[in-house]
């Protein structure tokens, strides 16, 4: 038991003792700051028709707990998945496989360390919500119970379940990271949309917020004295919402069956893990593959290299050969079947109505390349190639530029059917914004890669960017899919230039060090 705790602790330390985790925490703080809109803000998070709660303890506690439960479930998955793969990549996997740890303990330890990681983020958000309460001080008394209760019964079981799902997916789909990411997104959408009006079905709500929302709706109904279902919105609703009316929300008395259901979710998660244990191959798969493929060396006479006679090469410091190789590397990266999806996507770009192709298909196809571009600057670190790259000739001007250009080219290649359609209709402004968008995404990948020395943060942000774009929020439109004036393009161009410059400055600084 003691060693089990030690394993979790060390796994947790290994993951949190990194610069990128610190940045993730800061990002969570920034996001948590927006959970309860500042009194004059022009967006809303939770709003029932024209009503929001008065800013008392209960409203702060429940709203932030619900928002955390939903957002951290979505984003958290992408933050924590790949934990087992990391063990393989770090070559710790084989050492672990040779130890006495049981499969169940290993998987459980991964679940718990996932959970701890998310819990740290929840902790930060929790503190933030209390600080916000005092910051927006509306004259209500501070009651800690309204903060603790929703976090414990709503948020914690939800993120525990996500911690389980991450491990389950990794055991089931092993190295198919992209598949895991896509599947989780569908699962999440399903779970969120699974709306239940019936009291009993609240038990099936992983995120545990329906019961609270219903209570809020009841209260609003009582005020307006109307019986129709109120239009409820959760999530960021932008725009100048007209001044909302307020109602006093005083928390929810959770029914015993609800509380039990939350524990059942936890138990269910543990059950999944136990069921899955026999399927966990304990890093064996990789072994088998290697064994099969390992090359038996034919004994042969000792050949000597005569360095003086082997052909001489010529120096060629031009960038083109390097660009070619980098492009080829990017192209080959990942599973081959992904290219089938890419080709289907390109066909869709060619045949779909222009607007849908531009606004929906393009960002999705680009997002599917996330694994190709997210590690554009960290790949050499994870594969331990950086000694070679940083001693190569002119690592900045040749290597970095060719890396970036090849990625931009690849992204543009995928957009090419759309680009051709746009140029036929002489819409050069859109073409320009697509090129800018491609550059922007690659530069963001580079920037976050350099900053965090990892790819996770960029992947999560790229996901959020794509998600908001296909939901039609024009504010985050980085590729010009929505109606924009020329001025917007100029702004975008300036942004791209700023990001690009800071990438080069950052890289130069790191090389100096």
């Amino acid at each position, binding site marked *: 038991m003691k060693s089990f705790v030690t394993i979790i602790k060390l796994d947790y330390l290994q993951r949190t003792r990194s610069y990128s985790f610190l940045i993730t925490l800061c990002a969570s703080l920034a996001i948590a700051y927006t959970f309860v809109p500042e009194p004059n803000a022009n967006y809303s998070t939770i709003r029932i028709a024209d009503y929001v709660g008065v800013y008392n303890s209960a409203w702060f506690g429940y709203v932030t707990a619900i928002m955390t439960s939903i957002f951290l479930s979505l984003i958290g998955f992408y933050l924590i998945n790949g934990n087992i793969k990391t063990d393989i990549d770090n070559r710790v996997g084989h050492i672990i496989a040779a130890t006495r740890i049981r499969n169940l303990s290993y998987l459980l330890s991964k679940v718990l360390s996932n959970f701890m990681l998310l819990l740290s983020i929840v902790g930060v958000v929790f503190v933030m919500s209390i600080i916000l309460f005092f910051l927006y001080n509306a004259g209500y008394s501070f009651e800690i119970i309204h903060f603790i209760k929703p976090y414990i019964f709503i948020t914690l079981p939800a993120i525990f379940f996500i911690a389980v799902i991450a491990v389950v997916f990794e055991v089931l789909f092993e190295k198919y990271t992209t598949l895991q990411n896509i599947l989780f997104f569908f699962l999440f959408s399903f779970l969120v949309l699974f709306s239940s009006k019936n009291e009993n079905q609240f038990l099936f709500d992983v995120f545990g917020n329906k019961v609270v929302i219903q209570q809020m709706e009841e209260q609003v109904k009582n005020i307006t004295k109307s019986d129709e279902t109120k239009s409820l919105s959760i999530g960021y609703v932008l725009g100048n919402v007209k001044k909302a009316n307020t109602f006093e929300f005083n928390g929810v008395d959770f029914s015993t069956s609800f509380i039990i259901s939350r524990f059942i979710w936890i138990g269910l998660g543990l059950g999944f893990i136990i069921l899955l244990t026999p399927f966990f191959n304990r890093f064996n798969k990789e072994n088998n*593959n*290697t064994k099969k*493929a*390992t*090359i038996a*060396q*034919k004994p*042969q006479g*000792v*050949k*000597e*290299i*005569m*360095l*003086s006679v*082997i*052909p*001489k*090469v*010529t*120096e*060629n*410091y031009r960038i083109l*050969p*390097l660009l*070619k*190789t*980098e492009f080829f*590397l990017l192209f*080959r*990266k990942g599973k081959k079947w992904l290219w089938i999806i890419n080709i289907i996507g390109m066909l869709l770009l060619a045949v779909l109505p222009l607007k849908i192709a531009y606004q929906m298909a393009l960002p999705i196809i680009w997002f599917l390349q996330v694994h190709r571009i997210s590690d554009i600057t960290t790949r050499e670190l994870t*594969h*331990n*190639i950086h*000694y*070679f*790259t*940083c*001693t*190569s*000739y*002119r690592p900045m001007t*040749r*290597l970095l530029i060719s890396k970036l250009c090849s990625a931009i080219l690849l992204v543009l290649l995928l957009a090419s059917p759309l680009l051709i359609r746009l140029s036929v209709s002489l819409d050069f402004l859109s073409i320009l914004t697509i090129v800018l968008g491609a550059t922007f995404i690659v530069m963001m990948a580079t920037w976050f890669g350099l900053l965090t020395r990892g790819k996770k943060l960029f992947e999560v942000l790229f996901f959020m960017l794509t998600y908001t774009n296909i939901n039609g929020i024009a504010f985050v439109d980085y590729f010009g899919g929505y109606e924009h004036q020329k001025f917007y393009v100029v702004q975008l161009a300036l942004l791209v230039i700023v990001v690009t410059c800071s990438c080069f400055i950052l890289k130069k600084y790191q090389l*100096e060090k």
Partner: protein
Amino acid sequence: MKLEIQNVSKKYQRNTYGLKDFSITIEKGILGLLGPNGAGKSTLLKMIATVNKPTQGIISLNKNNIAKDANYMRKQLGFLPQDFGVYPNLNAYEFLEYMAAMKGIGGSNLKSRIHQLLNGLNLIDAAKKPIGTYSGGMKQRIGIAQVLLNDPKIIIFDEPTVGLDPEERVRFRSLISDLANDCIVILSSHIVSDIDTIADQVAVMKNGTLITNGNQDYIINTVSSKVYETTIKKDDLVSFKLKNLVVSTSRKNENLQVRYITESPTSNSVQQIATLEDAYLYLTKNN
């Protein structure tokens, strides 16, 4: 070709030095760096290879300060890091082509040069398989092939023979002596036999400092009349070790034959011809 290292220090954290006030000059030929784990060999080699910059001091190649003009060094450099990785999904040809592109070499001969290097390093049969499936020694040889892609004038091998089987070690040594004609080769090891037959110059280091440096005879001279062999009882070994620096022991019937270094040998000892190994142990233990 002249590589000068003047008073170079590398500070890692406050008060922890990887290397301290290190000076040496190398003008063509093979320099062997010997030192126990943590002596600072990799720290030094990484600075010469422009991976890191010295905290203090100057490293210059033909009077060019390489901290200022790193690309001058990189153009003529071949570097095998101690701990390097590969892109596991590329095969040997592709990986070496990638390395060539990074180093800025090309031309019509590149393909056949890669082919011959792979052939010479005994990797040709596996060359079309992904490097991820290679054995440790094969991966090491890919690293060596990578060094020789261009015609490097400064060649740095950090523990090149790790993972190579005896036959490959022999081959590597003859490869190195073929290299050294007109360029500088620096190789590090903590195994004396990897260095003793090939190095023109040997530097022994410990705890980030240079203990001594010179040609092999010079280094061996430090222990030349101090190496003895004697036979002792098994039970006496512990007390014998406390008093003398034991180089090696071997079983001889019921007793042990010990080779040791001393100024004042015990009565039944026989003087031996000193080797580099004796000198290395003497220098690293006594300083």
